[in-house]
C-alpha cells in the first residue's frame, strides 16, 4: 500500500507524527509547533506540564532519524507567542540549536510568532518557494499554485462500530495541503469546519497515517450554508 500521495507531480509522504516528508528533496515539513505553549499558560496561572517543547523536539528528532531528511521547513506558529524563544528551557534550547546548526532550517513566520526564532539559528522568511511548492503559514483561498501551509490544525472524526476516533489529519485538495499541528499541546479544528472549508474551496480529502497505512477519508460537504 502506497504511503505517499502525489501532489504537484511530487511524491510526498505524510507521517504519523504529523510531519510531511519529501524524499526527493530530503525535506521535512512541519506546521504549528507552538513551542512553549505550556509556559504561556503558566504565566496566566494555568500550570500545564512544562514538557511540551521537549516532547515536540523529541518527535521531530525521531522523524528526522527515520527519514534522514537534511532540510526542515517549519510552516509558522513555531512558537506559541513572540516571548516563547526567551522562555525555552535550557535543554530544549540546546537541542534546537544543534538541529538548526546541522540542517538546512527554515522558519516561516506565522500569526503567533515573529522573527524571534532567528535567535536559535536557521533562516526566517514570511513565505518561500521550493521547487513547485509554495510554502506559507496560512493558505490563500483561491490560490492556484501548489501550496503547503498550516495554521488550521485540521483533525478528523471517524465513526466505527459505535466508537468515535479522532486523529490529526492532512487536509488535501488538488492544489493545497494543510498540515496538522505538530506541537504536543496543539488542539485541532474539524476538517469539515466552515472556516477550513472556505479556504479549501472544494472537494477535499483527509489523510491519516496509521502505522504502515495511509488512510483517506472524504471530507463531508461544509457544514455552513446560508440561512
Amino acid at each position, binding site marked *: 500500500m502506497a504511503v505517499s500521495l502525489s501532489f504537484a507531480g511530487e511524491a510526498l509522504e505524510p507521517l504519523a507524527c504529523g510531519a510531511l516528508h519529501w524524499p526527493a528533496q530530503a525535506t521535512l515539513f512541519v506546521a504549528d509547533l507552538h513551542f512553549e505553549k505550556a509556559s504561556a499558560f503558566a504565566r496566566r496561572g494555568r500550570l500545564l506540564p512544562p*514538557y511540551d517543547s521537549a516532547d515536540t523536539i523529541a518527535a521531530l528528532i525521531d522523524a528526522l532519524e527515520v527519514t534522514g531528511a537534511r532540510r526542515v521547513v517549519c510552516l509558522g506558529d513555531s512558537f506559541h507567542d513572540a516571548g516563547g524563544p526567551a522562555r525555552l528551557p535550557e535543554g530544549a534550547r540546546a537541542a534546537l540549536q544543534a538541529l538548526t546548526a546541522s540542517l538546512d532550517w527554515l522558519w516561516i513566520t506565522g500569526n503567533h510568532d515573529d522573527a524571534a526564532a532567528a535567535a536559535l539559528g536557521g533562516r526566517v522568511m514570511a513565505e518561500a518557494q521550493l521547487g513547485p511548492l509554495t510554502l506559507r503559514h496560512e493558505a490563500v483561498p483561491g490560490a492556484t499554485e501548489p501550496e503547503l501551509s498550516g495554521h488550521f490544525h485540521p483533525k478528523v472524526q471517524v465513526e*466505527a462500530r459505535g466508537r468515535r476516533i479522532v486523529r490529526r489529519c492532512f487536509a488535501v485538495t488538488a492544489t493545497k495541503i494543510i498540515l496538522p499541528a505538530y506541537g504536543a499541546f496543539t488542539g485541532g479544528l474539524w476538517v469539515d469546519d466552515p472556516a477550513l472549508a472556505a479556504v479549501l474551496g472544494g472537494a477535499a480529502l483527509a489523510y491519516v497515517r496509521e502505522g504502515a497505512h495511509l488512510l483517506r477519508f472524504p471530507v463531508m460537504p461544509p457544514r455552513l450554508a446560508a440561512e
Partner: protein
Amino acid sequence: MTLPTPIADWFAARGWAPRAHQLAMVAAARADRHALLVAPTGAGKTLAGFLATLAELAEQPGEGLHTIYVSPLKALAADVQRNLLTPVTEIGLAIRVETRTGDTSSDRKKRQREDPPQILLTTPESLALLLSYPEAATMLAGVKCVIIDEIHAFATTKRGDQLNLALSRLQTLSPGLRRVGLSATIADPEAYQGWLAPDADASAVTLVTSEPGAAPRVDILIPEDRIPWAGHNGRWAARAVMRQIEQARLAIVFVNTRAIAEIIFRDLWTENDQALPIGIHHGSLSAEARHKVEAAMASGRLRAIVATASLDLGIDWGDVDLVIQMGAPKGASRLMQRTGRANHRMDEASHAIIVPGNRFEYLEALAARDAVLAGELDDDDFRPGGLDVLAQHIFGLAAAEAFDADALYAEVRGSAPYAGLARAQFDAVLNFVATGGYALKAYDRYHRLTRQKDGRWRLTHPKLAAQHRLNAGTIVEAVTMNVTWGRRGRRLGQVEEYFGAQLRVGDSFGFAGQVLEVTGFDGPDIHVKLGRGVPKIPSYQGGRLPLSTHLAARVKGLLNAPARWTDMPDDVREWLEVQQRVSRLPGRDDLLIETFPRDDRWFMVAYGFAGRNAHQTLGMLLTQRMEAAGLQPLGFVGSDYMVAVWSLQPVTDPRPLFSPDVFEAELADWMAASPFLRRAFREVAIIGGLIDRQIPGQHKTGKQLSVSSDLIYDVLRRHEPDHLLLTAAWADARAKLTDIARLAALLEQAQRAMVLMPLDRVSPLAVPVLLEIGKESVPGAADSALLLEADALAAEAMG
C-alpha cells in the same frame, strides 16, 4: 419540649400540632447537638430543619447571619424561600430570608457579604465561592446553624467532598456551629451521621427519625404477559404506558438517560390518541426550557412528563399521582426516591409502575419492588475525598486570606471524607496548587501561591482569585454546542460537541421532544427550525448507572426461589424453567460459567451479577488472558448480569482466566489508554484548576485559548506517571467507570465457587447478552484497527 408562644400559637391557629420529629429536632438544638433527620417525602422535613432556628430568632431577635441552608438544587433553594416566608410572615418574625445561588446578581451578593440576612439559602458551589472572599471570615464568624437538605444526594459525590470541606471551614470560623442534615430514607443512617459530624464522629450527631410513611404501591406492567428478550427502556410497552397516563391526573415517566427520554417521548406521542399535553425534562435542556415545563406541571397544564434524574430531587411541581419507571431502576433507593415523587403526603400511598425492558429486567423490577416494600435500600458507597476537590478548596481559601499549612491540615482532617488524609498527601496537594507539582522546576516565576515571611501561604497575584471564582465547582460537563432557534433565537439546550460536529445543514435530530432541522452554524451554536421525519437522537456521556450490589443479590435470590416463579409472566417462568433443564441457574453465592459453540465460534458466558462496568472490565481482562493463552478471542460484551466472550478456540478450563492475581497490573495499560481514564483526567484537571472550564458560548475562538486535556494527559503520563492529578484520575476511574472493587470480589468468588457448565448450544439465560452484540460499543478494541476497518469500508463503498 415547648415552642415559643408565637410559634406555638401559629401551629394552633392552623389547627396543627408539631410532629414528634419536628420537636425532637428542636430538642437536639437546645441540647446543642448536631442532628440528622431521616424522614420520607411529605413529613414536613424542611420545617423540622428550620424550626429550631425560628424558635431561637423568636426568643432572641438579632441581626447577623444565623442559619445557612444548603440545597443541591438552585430551584429548591428558591422553593424553600417561598415555603419558609409563609410561616415567618404569619408568625410575625422580623427575619430576612434570602437566596444566594449562581442566579443571584453580583451586586446582591456583595450586599449580602456586607449586610447578611438572618437566613441564607444557598448551594454547595455558592457556599464555596463565598468562602473565597476576604469578607467571609467576618460575615460567617457568628453563624449558629447550617442545614444540609437532601444530604443523601450529596454525601458520596464530589459535591459532597466540597461541601464537607466548607463545613470544616465554617466550623473554624464559628466554633459553636450546629450542623443539621435532612435526608430521605437511607440504608445506613450512621454512615451519614459520621459524614455530617466534625471529625467524622457519628456520636456527636443525634439521629431523629419520623414515623414511616404509607407503604407505596408498586406494579410491574407486562401487557398481555409478553416480554421481550432484549432492550433496556420499555419502548415496546409505549401503548400500554399511554393508557396508564390517560387514567392518571399527572404522571412522571422516569427514564435512565437523556437520549432515552427523547426516544420515549416520541414513542408516547405516537400513541397519544387523545393528544394529551405531555412534556419532557432533562439536564441538557436550557434552564429556560426546564422552567417552562416545571411551571406547566405546577399549574396543572400537563398530564405527563418524561424525565431523567433531573426530576429525582426537589419540589412539589404539581399534583403527581403516578410514577412510571421505564426500564429497570438499577437500585432500590432510586426506585424509592422516584416513587416518592408521586403524592407528597406521607400518610397516602404513592403509586409507581415499572416497565421492564427485558426478562432480566423483569426480575430486577420484582427485586426492586420487594426491596422497597421491605424498606431495604442500597448501601451508599462512601469514598475518600477527591484530591482535585481539595486542591480547589485550598486555592479558594488562599483567595480569601493567607493561611497556615499546619492549621489548614488539621481543619481538612476534621472533614469526614478527608479524615484519613496523610500529611504527605496534603503537602502534595498544596505543592500542586502552589507550583503545579512537577519534578522539573520550570515554573519558579509562575507559582500561584507563595510563603510570606510569617510562613503563611498567600496568592501571588489577585487576578488569580477572579480566575478561580470563574472556574470553581465540581460538576464537569462534556464539551457542548448550543441549540438555538434560528440565528438570534432562544436557546433550547445543548448537545455534546462530537454529535453537533457531525450534523450538516438540512439534517434532522430529536431534541426537547421535537424534530429539529439544522439551518446553520455559528461557532458553538447550532441554529435550528422545526423539522420532520425520523431524526437521529443525540447521545450523552455517562448516565447509565450499573445495577446495585443489593439488587443484584436480590435478583439471584429470585432465580433460586422457584416458589416465586409461579406468579411470574409465562415468558419469564418458561425461560427460567428451560434454563434449569438445559443448564442450571446461577446460585446465590457461586459463579456460573457456561461454554458452548455457535457459528464456528466458542462462547463463554460468566454470570457475575456485578454490574455492567465491572463486566466490561472483566471482558477486557478475559480477552487479554485468552490472547496470551492462544485461545484467539474475537470479542466480548457485558451487561449488568453477565459477560460473554467469544473465541476461535474453546475454553476448557476457565479457572486460570479468572485468577485474581495481578489483574490490576494487567489492566493498567488498557486503563491508561482507555477513554475512561482520559474522561476522569479531564474532570480532575478542571476541578483541580489545571485547565479552564469551558463556559458555553465562550469557546468561539477555541483552539488557541484552551488545551485539550487528552494532550496534557499524554504528556503527563510520559513524563510524570505519578503526578497528583493522574493519581486522582485513577482513583475516579477505578471507582466509577471500571468498578475494580466489584471485579475483584467477582474474581475471588470465581476461585471459591466456580461452576462450569459445558453446553452444546446457547442457554436461555445467555440469549439477552448475545442480543447486545453489535449494539454496545466495545471499549477494548484498538482504535487503530477500527480506523483501518472504517477506511476499508469507505474504500469499498467508493469503489
